[in-house]
């Protein structure tokens, strides 16, 4: 091509693009905006099905809203006026009625419920879904096990609309476990059509397709960018939700999410730093709802299997060195419930979480260090999950500062997401700042995961003690049988032991904070800490 012509055409293209630039801004479509909810968070789902391999937390939210369960929880109002699920009151969802016998429970399913594609929900689908949950392995199976739901033999189809679960043992947690996200009811016919020999449960299909009967279905999903939900007009699991369309966008920068909220360009945001929530609340432009996370504790854990933290006095020294109040103020902006400074380590009630008796006292800490034989000081590492860095980093820095004053030199170790789970599984970290909360809000449930001899991955301290294990098992058994006297004794027993031996130091019970535009109503706190779209409304 001739040089001149080439350059001429280039100039023409350049000129053309400049000319079209001026008219840039045009107002958003107001009507469509009114019927759509825009939710912004840092991460989006990596899988729409909680049964999938490695589904992340945002994926749980997709599962919760697109699938129904047999039961759900009723709502109650908290002292500050906000709504929360009621742990003790179960309500019908797909099961309109149920009877509990001694070693089984029978559920009568609604006759008018259908899946998104119109096929009716039958007991066969329920059994298939439960079988799937206990067979796929990974987290879902472990969660089912927590409520003693372990074998497909337990799940029996009595007739098209009657479903029975046979208990393996008496467990108070079985019924509440039916209301968690995992035992969702899946459209077995549809999924079986899309399954294969290598993938008998159709996990590939449900990863990107909703095959449920829930109030919403996923209309489009661009991984890493956005999820668009549409309301399922024939939903029978409860009153029809008010919002027709929900758009969930991934916005990695926290500052931008906050800016979006303040300017009114986004409706709901969850995962902002505590400081932003505190300020948003005081500015008053948006509503901020803060609910204590049930059965949830942020803690400083120490690995008790390896020296030096196998020394109880050393752990107690650390417990006295932590700058608790500073953490509450500087890291959490007071948006948390303190778990320190009680009168003593003796458990006062059956409430969990409850505060322990340690408080910041550097002299006591130094004395205990000397008693433990570490008067010379020690070197160690303090680790935390980079993904939780917004909260964990300031906490780690403050703790590091105080530990230095009693002779412990802790290097801070920021561990990126994927590695964090590996490290937790390896149980090699000497000291860490971490968070755990159990979906079923009972103390024995928490202790089962964190202090029991089964040494689950959440028992990050590798704490194995036969007395502790006995008390936890005893409490679970007693709760199942209704033996409240033994229950009381065991629970108070294991809490006190945990505080005295302090393999992990509870710091605070965090709040789950949500920022909502003033015209958004119907927010309800759920134990899974994800957003339930079904109760939301937009004025």
């Amino acid at each position: 091509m001739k040089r001149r012509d080439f350059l001429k055409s280039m100039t023409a293209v350049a000129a053309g693009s400049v000319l079209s630039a001026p008219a840039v801004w045009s107002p958003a479509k107001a009507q469509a905006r009114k019927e759509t909810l825009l939710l912004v968070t840092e991460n989006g789902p990596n899988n729409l099905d909680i049964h999938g391999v490695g589904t992340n937390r945002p994926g749980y939210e997709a599962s919760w809203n697109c699938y129904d369960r047999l039961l759900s929880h009723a709502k109650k109002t908290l002292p500050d006026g906000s709504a929360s699920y009621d742990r003790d009151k179960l309500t019908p969802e797909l099961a309109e009625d149920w009877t509990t016998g001694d070693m089984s429970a029978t559920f009568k399913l609604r006759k008018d419920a259908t899946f998104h594609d119109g096929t009716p929900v039958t007991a066969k689908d329920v059994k298939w879904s439960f079988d799937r949950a206990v067979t796929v392995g990974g987290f879902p199976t472990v969660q089912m096990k927590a409520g003693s739901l372990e074998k497909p033999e337990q799940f029996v189809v009595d007739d098209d609309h009657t479903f029975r679960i046979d208990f393996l043992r008496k467990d108070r947690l079985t019924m509440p476990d039916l209301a968690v996200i995992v035992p969702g009811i899946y459209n077995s016919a549809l999924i079986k059509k899309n399954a294969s020999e290598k993938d008998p449960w159709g996990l590939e299909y449900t990863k990107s397709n909703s095959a449920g009967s829930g109030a919403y279905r996923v209309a489009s999903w661009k991984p890493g960018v956005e999820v668009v939900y549409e309301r399922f007009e024939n939903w029978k699991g409860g009153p029809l939700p008010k919002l027709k369309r929900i758009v969930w966008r991934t916005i990695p920068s926290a500052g931008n999410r906050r800016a979006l909220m303040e300017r009114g360009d986004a409706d709901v945001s969850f995962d902002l730093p505590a400081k932003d929530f505190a300020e948003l609340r005081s500015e008053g432009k948006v509503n901020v709802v803060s609910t204590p996370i049930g059965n949830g504790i942020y803690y400083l854990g120490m690995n008790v299997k390896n020296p030096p933290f196998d020394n109880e006095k050393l752990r107690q020294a650390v417990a006295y060195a932590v700058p608790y109040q500073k953490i509450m103020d500087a890291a959490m902006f007071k948006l948390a419930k303190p778990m320190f400074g009680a009168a003593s380590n003796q458990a006062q009630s059956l409430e969990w979480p409850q505060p322990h008796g340690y408080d910041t006292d550097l002299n006591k800490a130094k004395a205990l260090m000397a008693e433990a034989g570490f008067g010379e000081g020690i070197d160690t590492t303090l680790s935390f999950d980079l993904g939780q860095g917004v909260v964990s980093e300031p906490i780690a820095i403050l703790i590091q500062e105080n530990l230095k004053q009693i002779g412990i030199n802790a290097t801070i170790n920021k561990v990126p997401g994927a590695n964090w789970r590996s490290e937790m599984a390896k149980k090699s970290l000497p000291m860490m700042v971490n968070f755990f909360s159990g979906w079923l809000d009972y103390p024995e449930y928490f202790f089962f995961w964190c202090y029991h001899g089964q040494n689950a991955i959440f028992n990050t301290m590798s704490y194995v003690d036969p007395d502790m294990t006995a008390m936890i098992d005893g409490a679970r058994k007693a709760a199942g049988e209704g033996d409240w006297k033994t229950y009381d004794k065991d629970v108070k027993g294991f809490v006190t032991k945990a505080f005295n031996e302090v393999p992990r130091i509870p710091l605070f019970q965090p709040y789950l904070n949500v920022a909502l535009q003033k015209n958004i109503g119907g927010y309800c706190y759920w134990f899974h800490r994800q957003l339930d779209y079904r109760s939301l409304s937009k004025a």
Partner: protein
Amino acid sequence: MLQTIGRRLLTVIPTLIGVIVVTFLLTRVLPGDPAVYFAGPAATPQSIEEIRKKLGFDRPLPEQFVYYVSDLAKGNLGNSLSTGQSVVEEVATRLPASAELTLFGLFVAMVIAVPLGILAAVKQGSIIDHACRVIATLGVSLPVFFTGLLLVYVFYFLLGWAPAPIGRLDIFYSTPDRVTGFYLIDSLLAGDVETFRAALAQLILPVVTLAIFSIAPIARMTRAAMLSALSSEFVRTARASGLSPYRVVITYAFRNAMLPVITTFGMVFSFLLGANVLVEKVFAWPGIGSYAVEALIASDYAPVQGFVLTMAILYVMLNLAIDLLYGVIDPRVRLEG
């Protein structure tokens, strides 16, 4: 010309092989065990082993490499573990997003930097020359994420002039049918002016951020090339012949100075494509940079390998294109080469 292309591609093959091997090793050296990550919370040692077998990570390294290469030969870059999508698909969707941003940013930078460079060369040693150098250097001294956040703060948050930094398109506009993957082009092709405007609006802040960063190298190179062109014999002749300053500077000097400037474009483009990572994070841009970063942090091998390979191939193509462009712009190169 075909011969040059063929020859060039041959020399590139050893480099590509090197890239494949190095990436493979690098991803395997990353700490963190993807099997544990994907076994989910509450993983037991058995479930971790199951996942490990399922994902094929229990086989010895050389065997994994062989599988990887044979997949590559079939055009299969594997699946991302964190999004579950095929890497090829995701790269195909995300690459145009980054390319659109980078090209547009480079274009804006060029529009500012080239005249600046020419001006500085013509008025060498004057205040304008110094000012030009200071401005350009300042732009490249700012960390690119800092500039981005600052712009968002001022133009979106304080002034409200720019639209919300929520990605390529506001939620009420549906993406135009995919022809090139460039929203600007696709929306025009579909005749949808509204979407075009919306996409353009979303592009402004990230493009300005990138442009600020790219002005310096382009301005510098333009100035240097212009200086050497202006001091050459033929320009002296042109001046002596009484041609207007405009003709001397633009028609004669600039045309000859363009070659090194174009090389700089190419270099800056390939640099930016990789450095986009930070800008994409700030503006929630669904580009290939943010894709690679997230995969890296999650120890997700396939996307990282796919990303690096794609970039390497792109870089080669780019160099080739620049060489061909040389031929078009400067007949001497074509005739001699």
